[in-house]
């Protein structure tokens, strides 16, 4: 049906050109800008749906492939395509961008055109990252994405926004340039080709693999982020405007996980095998230590940010467990389970953390404080909102029936096949996650209204209701019926595990 139709390109470029149009329409007034931005984001989402419905679940091959020469002097090609790992992430991106546009509707009054344009351009660039099959193309999208985020945090952010955004930019930039060196090295090894699929097949010695793995690790571990290079995240999240936090948590962090799946594991499988203990250890530290850090936070956004780091620890755990599972002859099934668990966790965390940041945003718009102590008894004045917040909080703790449960359960199950103590430490998240999330809910939502601000709160309006309801549907849908998500990635992940198990030495 879409054989010759450049669907994937449209999903990438429509938001970018739409964003430029929004920028140019800035003088026509805020309303025109908002509607235009909403239209662009909805069309982009609609265009991304056929990527799922038209996707062939039975093959791990790249689909919707487009190929055109781009920089002939360097043999760089405009080569894009998606597999079962990329499709859910692209859908997540286009879906969340619609919500972010709606969420910013009345809230953003300063330089409205630039605000929506930045988000739309970033949407296109992130789709480009997920779709790129050429290393140079990937790198260009990957880096270009930093610019709109830098501006979003810096222009519309909180009081310490300048510090936070420059820290965010420099941290991620440092990780990325090391990845660039690795790309160029492989480019030379392959006699001048940046094809990612060829990189997967490139034989590399152990020393090369370890250095390349570490270079990639610098880029992806910062992005995801892993302990101890996570410190940019709480700052960036706290200072970013609500929409920026949502996109950061829901999608940008996933880019790190995607990078591990697309680059680190298939290109340097032996190095990943040797260094898996290292990664698993860092993941467990993130799960346990960052979980403890989250408990003591006074700032709601910071708490959600630390909770994100802990949850992303689960993702990296799931992605690097397969080596241990196979070493324990836990079998292919267990290995696939762990990796799929990591993937499901990424998507689910996209919904849940996005929803939590939106909840904090709803309260912040009314009270202009993110401090937990400024709230208490919100349920008295905002019952509808409180119901949503409690639902998302339970999802964050991994309550069965919500999407948060599926991924965590799969990863914990897989980690039992690797090592009991890993499973034990990983399972601590169920306690820690419940502790910090439920304590947050208890202090903010329940009890008597603590001050006049809270007593005067108005419940969410239709716009906010729409955004939170859509997310609630997503969280419950994938919690009760995760099959659509798992089926789309199943063949790809199996293929990836098989590929990773073959030594390149």
């Amino acid at each position: 049906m879409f054989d010759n139709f450049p669907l994937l390109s449209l999903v990438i470029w429509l938001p970018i050109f739409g964003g430029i149009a929004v920028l140019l329409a800035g003088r026509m007034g805020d309303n025109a800008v908002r509607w235009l931005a909403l239209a662009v984001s909805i069309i982009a989402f609609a265009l991304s749906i056929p990527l799922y419905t038209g996707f062939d679940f039975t093959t791990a091959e790249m689909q919707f492939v487009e190929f055109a020469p781009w920089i002939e002097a360097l043999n760089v090609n405009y080569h894009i395509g998606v597999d079962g790992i990329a499709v859910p992430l692209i859908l997540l991106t286009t879906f969340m961008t619609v919500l972010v546009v709606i969420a910013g509707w009345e809230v953003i009054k300063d330089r409205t055109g630039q605000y929506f344009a930045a988000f739309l351009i970033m949407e296109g660039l992130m789709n480009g990252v997920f779709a790129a099959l050429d290393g140079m193309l990937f790198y260009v999208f990957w880096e270009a994405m930093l610019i709109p985020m830098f501006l979003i945090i810096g222009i519309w952010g909180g009081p310490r926004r300048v510090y936070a955004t420059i820290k965010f930019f420099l941290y991620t930039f440092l990780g990325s340039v090391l990845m660039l060196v690795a790309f160029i090295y492989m480019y030379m090894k392959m006699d001048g080709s940046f094809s990612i699929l060829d990189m997967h097949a490139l034989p590399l010695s152990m020393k090369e693999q370890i250095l390349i793995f570490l270079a990639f690790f610098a880029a992806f571990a910062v992005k995801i982020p892993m302990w101890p290079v996570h410190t940019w995240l709480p700052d960036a999240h706290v200072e970013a405007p609500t929409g920026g936090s949502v996109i950061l948590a829901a999608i940008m962090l996933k880019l790190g996980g995607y990078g591990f799946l697309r680059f680190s594991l298939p290109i340097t499988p032996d190095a990943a095998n040797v260094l898996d203990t290292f990664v698993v250890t860092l993941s467990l530290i993130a799960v346990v230590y960052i979980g403890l850090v989250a408990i003591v936070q006074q700032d709601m956004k910071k708490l959600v940010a630390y909770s994100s780091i802990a949850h992303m620890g689960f993702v990296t755990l799931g992605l690097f467990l397969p080596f241990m599972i196979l070493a324990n002859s836990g079998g292919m099934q267990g290995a696939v389970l762990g990796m799929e668990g990591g993937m499901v966790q990424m998507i689910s965390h996209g919904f849940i953390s996005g929803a939590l940041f939106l909840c904090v945003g709803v309260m912040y718009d009314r009270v202009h404080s993110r401090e937990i102590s400024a709230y208490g008894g919100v349920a008295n004045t905002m019952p509808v909102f409180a119901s949503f917040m409690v639902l998302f909080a339970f999802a964050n703790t991994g309550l069965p029936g919500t999407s948060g449960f599926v991924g965590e359960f799969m990863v914990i199950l897989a980690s039992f096949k690797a090592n009991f103590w890993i499973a034990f430490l990983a399972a601590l998240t169920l306690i820690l996650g419940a502790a910090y999330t439920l304590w947050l809910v208890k202090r903010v939502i329940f009890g008597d209204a603590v001050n006049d601000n809270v007593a005067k709160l108005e419940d969410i309006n239709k716009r906010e209701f729409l955004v939170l309801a859509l997310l609630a549907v997503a969280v419950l849908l994938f919690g009760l019926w995760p099959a659509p998500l798992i089926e789309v990635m199943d063949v790809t992940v199996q293929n990836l595990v098989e590929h990773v198990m073959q030594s390149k030495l």
Partner: protein
Amino acid sequence: METTFISPNLWPALPEMFLLGMACVILVADLFFSDKQRVFTHWLSLGTLAGTVLILGAQIDNPDIVTFSGMYVADGMAIVLKLVACATTAAVLVYSRDYLKSRQLFQGEFYVLILGALLGAMVMISGLNFVSLYLGLELLSLSSYGLVALRRDDGVASEAAMKYFVLGAIASGLLLYGMSILYGISGTLDVLELAAWASGAELSAGLLLALVFVIIGMAFKLGAVPFHMWIPDVYEGAPTAVTLFLGTVPKLAAFALFMRLLVEGLGAMHSAWQAIIVALALLSMFIGSVVAIAQTSLKRMLAYSTISHVGFLLMGILAGTAQGYQAAMFYTITYVIMAAAGFGMILLLARSGFEADKLDDFAGLNRRSPWFAAMMMFVMFGMAGVPPFVGFYAKFAVIWAALEAGFTWLAVAAVVLSVVSAFYYLRLVKIMYFDEPVDDAGELEVAADSRLVMSVNGLLILGLGIFPGGLMAVCISAIS
């Protein structure tokens, strides 16, 4: 050797001859213009540049002609660099007109000196003999000294001119000394004959001495650490219009000088000069990136940024491969495009009695003029090497060259230092986008021609960043 006089082929040098003739015409004609008519000098100079570009364009089809008994060459590299130099000079004239008018500097001398400096740069680019190279260098330098001293009643400008003159003279002397030793050892002043001699020569102490002197002289002109001290002072002290010129066109000429002397002449001695260039490159990148952070003056910041870019450029040259030289050429051209827009923006922001050369003068530019703020942001992200701006491919190409040459550690150092330098570029973006404008600063009032040139210049940084293939192909065919 020819014993009878044969009329030389003048065709390769026609652009320079046209430029020289027109410069003389402008010099004389300007005497008859009143201050109100001075704008004719401006248009006449732009017309001269257009004519030079046309002649250069006609030369593209038949390059590689050597003339004047091997002293002068119009090869692909020369024509490309000269075209960029002429276009940049035209942009300099457009950007600086209103600036000069508001400062009583709108005089014929400026135009004649600029054209003279451009002529020197073009002679340097085409020189294939020590004498022609040196003549071009001196013509460029002497015109530049005059340009820096244009504001002769200003203490800072005079100091800068003096410093520039003294250090420049020392550098020229060192270069000349190195050249004379080379002549003494090899017995030739001709670059191609030197290359033939060098391919069979042993590395001797004398040759090494000559190499050191030549490289120091060239490093002075290019502004590589530790011979960079004049750059920040001169950039800051000179009128911004002159800084704009000094920051762009002479870099093209200095690159050509490196190529003619080190690569075409002493390419066989690559292993001898490589280590020196490695040290220069690393120090330049380091000092340029780190010291720029401490600057509050935008002109000084861009001066240190220049130094760090020189380090990157040298990384292409030290690789010693055609690919490296192509990368360095690509880097030089893209740097000149970005620097022209960067310094040009200071000129557009400046008003009478207000230089706009402090970082804080850009505060809230996004609120005042979003379009120009976006152009300046392109410059900053371009210089930082962030895709999709052209500076990224420039950095990519030289880092690739360094990796090919086996300098993995240098490549890693370079990318880490590029992150350090990203900080101060981001700081200007922060000032333009996150800070509020000071009290009464309104929208920029910019003449239509400056607005157009700046837009083209800024969009070029983005456009070449998205489609760098064309310029890369040009550089590849120019050096092969």
